[in-house]
């Protein structure tokens, strides 16, 4: 469903991006050009700067240097096009709000100022809840959900936002295999309708299955590009070091699929 007037538009463009906490830079010289309508995986070891990269793109933390553009314009202009699911939600879980109301929050922008959430929007929120398998929990106060269920509710909120670019920081952490499959199906549908999705991911075995674009990160960009070009044992070693036995398995997986 690519727009012919805008062939291969660049969804995310970064140049010379460096990010630091206090005095210590944790991300160096990040140059990326990610095309639209892809599911892009972001992989790298713990502390590699994956979450930091997303936060820097979304202006949630200051950048030391560098430029970020989403469809050619800075985030401040484009933020209405962005959906974001953080790694860990830092909300007040005892807040008087149930799953359905939380998902409906993603529709507030469409509803507009001052107007209450009408039935039409409640139904949309309910549909998103059932997409992530949470329809039966619509009326639950959010502290009375399990960790994985809470995560699915927040994912549903991002889905109803109807964004052009999604950033999901480890959406599969803590969800069961069936839900993971369901979420992947949703991501594929998003991609088919022209959306770009960035997903921080840790399971190397499913990389080739889930993603068509890959950013391999360890304080700098080790490699970025279409999965079949960059997901090699050489790049994995450069990203994770030689130490992981797990790598062999993943590399085998690479061998199988290519």
């Amino acid at each position, binding site marked *: 469903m690519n727009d012919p007037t805008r062939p291969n538009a660049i969804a995310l463009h970064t140049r010379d991006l460096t990010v630091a906490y206090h005095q210590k830079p944790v991300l160096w010289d990040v140059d990326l050009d990610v095309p639209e309508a892809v599911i892009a995986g972001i992989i790298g070891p713990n502390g590699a700067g994956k979450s930091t990269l997303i936060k820097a793109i979304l202006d*949630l933390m200051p950048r030391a240097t560098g430029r970020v553009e989403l469809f050619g314009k800075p985030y401040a202009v484009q933020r*209405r096009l962005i959906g974001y699911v953080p790694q860990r939600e830092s909300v007040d879980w005892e807040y*008087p709000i*149930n799953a359905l109301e939380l998902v409906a929050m993603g529709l507030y*922008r469409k509803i507009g100022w001052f107007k209450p959430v009408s039935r039409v929007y409640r139904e949309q929120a309910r549909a998103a809840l059932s997409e992530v398998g949470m329809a039966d*929990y619509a009326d639950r106060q959010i502290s009375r959900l399990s960790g994985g269920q809470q995560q699915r509710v927040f994912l549903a909120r991002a889905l109803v936002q109807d964004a052009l670019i999604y950033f999901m920081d480890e959406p599969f952490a803590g969800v069961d295999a069936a839900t993971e499959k369901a979420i992947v199906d949703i991501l594929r549908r998003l991609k088919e309708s022209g959306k770009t999705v960035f997903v921080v991911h840790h399971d190397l075995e499913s990389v080739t299955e889930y993603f068509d674009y890959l950013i391999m990160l360890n304080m700098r960009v080790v490699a970025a590009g279409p999965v079949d070009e960059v997901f090699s044992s050489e790049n994995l070693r450069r990203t994770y070091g030689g130490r992981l036995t797990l790598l062999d398995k993943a590399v085998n997986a690479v061998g199988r699929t290519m």
Partner: protein
Amino acid sequence: MTADLILRVVLLTDYNTRVVVFGTVMLGIAGGVIGVFLLLRRRALLADAVSHAALPGIAGAFLVMVAFGADGRSLPGLLLGALIAGLLGMACVSVIDRYTHLSEDAALGIVLSVFFGFGIALLGVIQKMRGASAAGLASFIFGKTASMLRSDAIFIGVSAVAIVVVAVFLFKELRLATFDPAFGASDGWPVGILDLVLMALVVGVTVLGMQAVGVILVIAVLIVPPAAARFWTDDLARTTVIAGAIGALGGYVGTSISALAPRLPAGAVIVTVMGVGFVVSLMFGTSRGLVHVARERHRLLMRIREQNLLRALFECEEAGAAVDTDRQMSYLGNARSYTGAELGRALARAERDGLVRRDERGVWAFTNAGRARAARFTRNHRLWETYLLEYAESAPSQVDYGADFIEHVLGEELVAELERVVEREGRRVPESVHTLKRGPA
């Protein structure tokens, strides 16, 4: 104190009482409604600092008005001074918090005490001034409800309505800004401005409440009713309504009591009444009240114990072990983790409930009612277990071991299918009273 007097106060026959009650009830509503968001934003203490910081504003406004030859006690003028000083205090807190290493609670403590102390000092200066009648000013510390004039009450009423209207129109926006400001910002909402609007409404209520309950106690109007309301519901809209209602009730009852006993300061009585409302809510609130939660928990425990006992007895019969006391007791002891005493208590309770009785051999047997219930529980249990195996992916949201009839949750067709699965495995499913009730096929 005659019954006649009480009646006159309660029915608001008295004009003065009517005026004051109107003012405090409106204040209670506005405080309750806005306080809900304040509490959810976790800014309760900031409001306390704001109200204390307002005192020097009141004194300062008095001095300024006297200096310009006006009546120093004009209420709008004093409240304007309070507003300015309160906002200044709030700004000081955020400056200290943001630009120094001190944490917010230190900033709150500094602003609250220093502003208040300065206010008290200014009041001392005013009292020494010749000519200026400063008599009313000290009443802002603890409030002097009885001094409320008709115009004051109307002013409070109109402002309270305005505040509530803003809260109603911005309900969804305030929910967003108080629940998940980071998401709100990323979604393009001006959460910073919404936050400011909320704090402005809070300052508004604080200033309105100063005359009635005083700068020290006004925070209670904002915090106590919302905190109480949280024990009754998990729904934000309902929390807001209940908080407003508790605030209104506190205003009405508190003012009435102090009208009956004129030496009681109304502000303190209003706050005390709200406190009683809080304690009652904490105990008996139907969502999170302690008594309610404990009672629900107890009921659930009793139910689970009863179900387990009946099922064990039923299975004991099925296994043919219900022939003499010894075998029955050892079967039951093994089936569940009962100690002897627990088992005895459980059986005694079931006997009292008319579910089991001892036959002439001393063996526990079901009554008719007990047998029907035991058969039902056993049946449900076996079907649920099968369901969990067959439908593992959707099961956790469906399975309800406590449900009276599995058919009500899963529907007759699915249950019939499950029955077939269980029987194929060579286990028995006790007949359902539910299907029997439907009459012969």
